[in-house]
């Protein structure tokens, strides 16, 4: 299980933090399930899953490509490769109304510029909305992915600037202010069930809905994860160590990203 050299992994045999993050995210996707894929790490993770344990993962990109199976990693959510390999290409209205809003997607992947202790996400602006310190791209498909996918997995690198007590702007609702908030808001999916970072994995406490550190990646300590968090991060009593990437996972990942 340790990352020893293998004929399949020609380059450094130890996975770096981003690779552990991506492999951990890929493993969270069950074979045969459907996944709403954003660009960047989510797309890498989903495509990795499809090439390892989940060949029948059904990837939906918001450009309207249903069941895409690209040979290479797309740069955008609308690369031609996605349309060419999709089971069906539908208008953007349909992907949002007939597929996402109707609750047909099992897992939504989201990134974040800020995420708070209840898994709420900001991708709109840092600081005051009307005079922002940093203007971010905005909502895109995220609010409805967060609302309507069966569950949400967040992939984001961990730092105190990103993991904040309270997001400056709630672009996408996680667990709101705590238990019952999603139900009150009429959000149908379970919301963020896992936040996968470069240090470990956070999951909402079943009772309080606050994110708790449930796993650290190999070589990472709970204290390191707590220091990279802007709130007083709780640590699960049965804190696990994330299983390291298998050599074949790493090899496939590196063939995808062009590293290795």
């Amino acid at each position, binding site marked *: 299980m340790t990352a020893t050299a293998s004929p399949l992994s020609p380059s450094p045999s130890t996975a770096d933090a981003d690779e552990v993050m991506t492999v951990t995210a890929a493993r969270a996707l069950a074979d045969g399930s459907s996944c709403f894929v954003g660009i960047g790490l989510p797309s890498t993770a989903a495509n990795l899953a499809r090439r390892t344990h989940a060949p029948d993962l059904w990837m939906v990109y918001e450009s309207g490509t249903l069941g895409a199976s690209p040979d290479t990693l797309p740069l955008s959510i609308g690369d031609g490769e*996605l349309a060419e390999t999709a089971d069906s*290409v539908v208008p953007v*209205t349909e992907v949002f109304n007939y597929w996402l809003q109707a609750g047909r997607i099992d897992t939504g992947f989201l990134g974040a510029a800020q995420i708070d202790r209840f898994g709420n996400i900001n991708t709109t602006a840092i600081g005051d909305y009307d005079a922002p310190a940093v*203007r971010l*791209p905005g909502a895109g498909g995220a609010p*409805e992915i967060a609302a309507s996918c069966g569950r949400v997995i967040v992939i984001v690198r961990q730092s105190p600037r990103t993991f904040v007590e309270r997001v400056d702007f709630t672009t*996408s609702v996680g667990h709101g202010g705590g238990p019952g908030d999603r139900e009150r808001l009429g959000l149908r999916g379970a919301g963020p069930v896992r936040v996968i970072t470069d240090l470990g994995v956070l999951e909402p406490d079943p009772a309080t809905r606050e994110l708790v550190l449930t796993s650290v990646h190999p070589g990472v300590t709970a204290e390191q994860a707590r220091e990279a968090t802007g709130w007083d991060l709780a640590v699960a009593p049965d804190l696990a160590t994330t299983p390291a990437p298998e050599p074949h996972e790493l090899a496939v990942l590196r063939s995808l990203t062009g590293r290795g």
Partner: protein
Amino acid sequence: MILPLDRAVAELVRDGDTVAMEGFTHLIPVEAGHEVIRQGRRDLTLVRMTPDIVYDRMIGAGCARRLVFSWGGNPGVGSLHRFRDAVVNGWPRPLELEEHSHAGMANRYAAGAAGLPFAVLRGYAGTDLVGRTPTIKPITCPFTGEELAAVPALNPDVAIVHAQRADRSGNVQMWGITGVQKEAVLAADRALVTVEEVVDELEPVPGQVVLPSRVVSAVSPVPGGARPSYAHGYYVRDNDAYRAWDAVGRDRDRFTAWLRDEVFGAAGGPRTPDRAPGEDREEQTA
């Protein structure tokens, strides 16, 4: 009906207009955007789900007063720096924002296309967009009592899209990822379509969307007009150009020089096929 791009833009796009240039990653009408810049249009309300580099350029060139959008980034690369500079620093002029989600924008176009004043969706609940965006209001289902979100129809003065082909009567054919272009065209008062080519007969193609000529105000042949975006079946997305835009857009001086060389330097109407926009990429990234 079939007009050179400069004449079509001159006739169809006016100062102060609400302009929707659509194309979801694919078939983005980039050259038409450059022509709007060349013609010095001002005070536009620019509408687009994913502003992308074409709006970054138009905003940087000072065409826009207001932006109605849902995701303002450089897809797969990062930020749009001209957009950021306008929002944060008001350069070259302040930019008002009206922000929605993709789902909200798509449904706003659909309502506009359908002649309805508003659309209903499960969206926005619990987000700070609700307080910030006056064009999001609650609506109650008269049958179940559920509360949902209402958004008003988008009915731009003019829609501009790019397509693969048109016939000589102005019927337009596009295929591949077709996004919300049909809805944008149907929602608008006027519509300009730039195309890769004008053909005698539109041979049916799987996945095609056909826009009948009666909803198209003008067709302009602009081969390569979507570059560095792509036209399925004609050329692929120039991902390097998107990456290279980051450095150009990041710096006001570099952007201004780029604008002078690459947009105004090509003045006098749309570029001809022997100097397709994509060929400028090397200079642009230099």
